[in-house]
C-alpha cells in the first residue's frame, strides 16, 4: 500500500472515530455515575437532526451545534427523569429513547419539509470545520482530569460505585446522576451533529446506523476509562475506514469488517481478553429512605 493511501486511511479513521469518541465519552459520564446509557444512538440522532435543521434555518453551523447540544441535553433529561426520578429500568428507558428518535425526526421532517425523514441539503460553506475532531480528542485528557482530579469527578465515581456511601457523605446522588446523564446528552449530540453537518451535509433517516451502539461498545471495550475508550474508538474507526476503502476492491466482504466492533465487545465482555468491570452501581436506581 502506498504511503499516500495509508495516510488517507489513517485520517479517515480519525474522522470516523470522532463521532464515536464524542458519544462514548458522553456515555462514560453517564455510566460512571451509575446510569446505563444505551440511548446514545437516540441522543446522536437527536443531535444530528437538530443540528441539520438549525443550520438550515440559521445558515450557521455554530448555531446548529449549539441547538444540537441543547436538544441532546433535553432528550437526556427525559432519560434522566425516567431513570433517576421514576427509577425506570435504565435499559428499557434507553430503548424507548432510541425508538423515539427513529420516529421524531421523520415525523418533524415530514411536516417541515414534506420529506420522509431527510432535511434539505446544506451548502458546503455552512458545514462544520474540523473543530469537532479537535474537540473530541482534546476531551480525552480533559475527561481523565475531571474524573480523577476534580471534586466533581470524585463524587461522580462515588455515586456510580456506592451511592449509599456518597449519600451518607452528604452528596446529592440524584443531582450528580443528572449531571452525568446531561453531559452524555450534550456530547452524544455533538457527535451526531458532526455526522449531519460535518461529514455529511444533511440529516437522513437513521443516519447514525448503529454508531451509538458502537460507541457503547467502545466504552465497554475501553473499560469505562477515557484513554482506553479513545483507543477503542480509533480501532473501530479504522475498521470502518478500511471497510469503506475495500468496498469493491478486496475479496473480503465488508460485512466481516463491519462486525469487528461487535464481536470484540462480546469477546471482552465474556472476559476472553482482559476483564472489563462496570461501575458497581451501574443500572441500580437509588432511592433515599426518609
Amino acid at each position, binding site marked *: 500500500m502506498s504511503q499516500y493511501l495509508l495516510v488517507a486511511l489513517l485520517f479517515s479513521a480519525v474522522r470516523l472515530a470522532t463521532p464515536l469518541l464524542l458519544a462514548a465519552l458522553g456515555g462514560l459520564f453517564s455510566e460512571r455515575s451509575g446510569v*446505563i446509557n*444505551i440511548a446514545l444512538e437516540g441522543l446522536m440522532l437527536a443531535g444530528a437532526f437538530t443540528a441539520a435543521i438549525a443550520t438550515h434555518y440559521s445558515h450557521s453551523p455554530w448555531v446548529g451545534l449549539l441547538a444540537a447540544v441543547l436538544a441532546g441535553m433535553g432528550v437526556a433529561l*427525559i432519560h434522566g427523569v*425516567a431513570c433517576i426520578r*421514576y*427509577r*425506570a*429500568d435504565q*435499559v*428499557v*428507558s434507553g*430503548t*424507548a*429513547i*432510541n*425508538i*423515539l428518535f*427513529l*420516529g*421524531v425526526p*421523520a*415525523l*418533524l421532517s*415530514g*411536516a417541515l419539509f414534506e420529506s*420522509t*425523514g431527510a432535511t434539505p441539503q446544506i451548502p458546503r460553506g455552512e458545514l462544520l470545520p474540523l473543530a469537532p475532531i479537535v474537540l473530541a480528542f482534546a476531551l480525552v485528557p480533559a475527561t481523565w482530569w475531571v474524573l480523577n482530579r476534580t471534586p466533581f469527578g470524585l463524587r461522580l465515581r462515588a455515586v456510580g460505585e456506592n*451511592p*449509599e456511601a456518597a449519600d451518607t457523605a452528604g452528596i446529592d446522588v440524584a443531582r450528580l446522576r443528572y449531571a452525568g446523564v446531561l453531559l452524555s446528552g450534550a456530547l452524544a449530540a455533538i457527535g451526531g451533529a458532526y455526522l449531519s453537518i460535518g461529514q455529511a451535509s444533511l440529516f437522513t433517516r437513521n443516519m447514525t446506523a*448503529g454508531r451509538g*451502539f458502537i460507541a*457503547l*461498545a467502545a466504552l*465497554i471495550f475501553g473499560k469505562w476509562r477515557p484513554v482506553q475508550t479513545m483507543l477503542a474508538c480509533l480501532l473501530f474507526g479504522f475498521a470502518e475506514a478500511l471497510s469503506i476503502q475495500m468496498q469493491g476492491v478486496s475479496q473480503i*466482504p465488508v*460485512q*466481516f469488517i*463491519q*462486525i469487528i466492533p*461487535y*464481536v470484540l*465487545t*462480546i469477546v471482552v*465482555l*465474556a*472476559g*476472553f481478553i482482559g476483564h472489563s468491570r*462496570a461501575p458497581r452501581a451501574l443500572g*441500580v*436506581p*437509588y*432511592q433515599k*429512605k426518609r
Partner: protein
Amino acid sequence: MKALRELLFPLAAVVAAFLVGAVLVALVGDSPLRTYELLIGSALTWPDGIGYTLFYATPLIFTGLAVAVAFRCGLLNIGAEGQLIIAAFATAWTGIAFAGWPAWLLIPLCFLAAALSGAAWGAIPGVLKARFGAHEVITTIMMNFIAAALASYFTQYHFKKPGDAILETVPIGEGAHVARLGRFLPGFPERIPLNLAFPLALLVCFLVYLFLWRTRWGYEIRATGASPAAAEYGGISTGRQIVLAMALSGGLAGMVAVNEVLGYRYRYYDGFSAGYGFTGIAVALLGRNHPAGVILASLLFGALLRGGLFVDIFTENVSKDLVQVLQAIIILFVAAEAVFRGPFRSPFARLSKKPV
C-alpha cells in the same frame, strides 16, 4: 378484579401516550382528532382493516412472547431482532435448498429451521451470561448487528436473486408456502396476507402460558428470575435456566419467520423486519410479560401499524412515524410505573431496613 387492576396501569400508559402524541400532532399542524380517527378507524374496517391489523400483530405476538419469557427469567432480551433475522434467513434457506420437497415435509422442516435457528442464536448470549457473566443486554445488542451483517452477507454473496437491485434471495419452494386465511374464510379475500401463522401465534401463547405456570421448567425459570439466590438454594441450576430461557426466547422470536417468510414474502429480503424485535419489548412491557397481555398489546400495536399507513396518506403533515413515537412514549410510561406500585424493592431498601 385482579385482572382489572393489572389492566389499569397499561391502559393509563396508553392513554397518556396518546395525549402526548396529540400534542405532537397539533404542533406539526394537524388535527389530533382526525389523525386518531384515521389511526384507529382504519384498523377496524372489515375485512381489510381487521385483516391487516391481525397480520401486523402476528410477528409482534412472537417477539412479545420472546421478550416476556426472557424477562420472566430476569433477562432483558434486546436481541429478538437479531434472532428473527437469523431465523428468517435460515427458514428461507431451508425453503430454497429443499424446494422440491412436498409441503407436508417441507413446512414442518421450515418451522423447525425457524425455531431452532432463532433458539441457537438466542442461546449464545444465554451461555455467555451463564458461563462468563457477560451482560445479556449488551451481548444481544451486539448480536443484532452481527446477525444483520451475516444475513446480508449470505444473501449478497450466495443466494442473491440475480439482476435485482434490492438485496433479496431467490424465492422459496411452493411447498413451503403457508396458506393465507382467505382460503378458509368465506368473504375474506386472499390478497390480505393474514395467514396460518396468526392462529399458530395464538396457540403458541397458550403453550407458553402452560409452560411457564404449569410445568416445573417454567417454575424454575420464573424462580431464577424472581431470585437467583433462592433458586440456587432450591437446587435449581440457574445457569441452565438462563440458557434455556434465552433459547426459548430466541426460538419464539424466530417464529416470526413463519409469518414473514413462509406466509408473506416467500423469500428472505434484507431489512424485512420493521423493528419487530424492538416493538416486542414494548409489547411485553405493556402486556405485563403475560401471554394474554402480549396478545392484547400486539393487537394494539398491530392496529397502530395498520392505521399509520392511512395517517401517512390522508393527513397534511403527520406521517406514519407517529406510531413509532407513540410506541416509545408508551414504553417510557410503562417503564416508569414501578414507582407507582407497591413497596419499593431495591437491594438498598433491604440493606437499610435490616439494622432497624
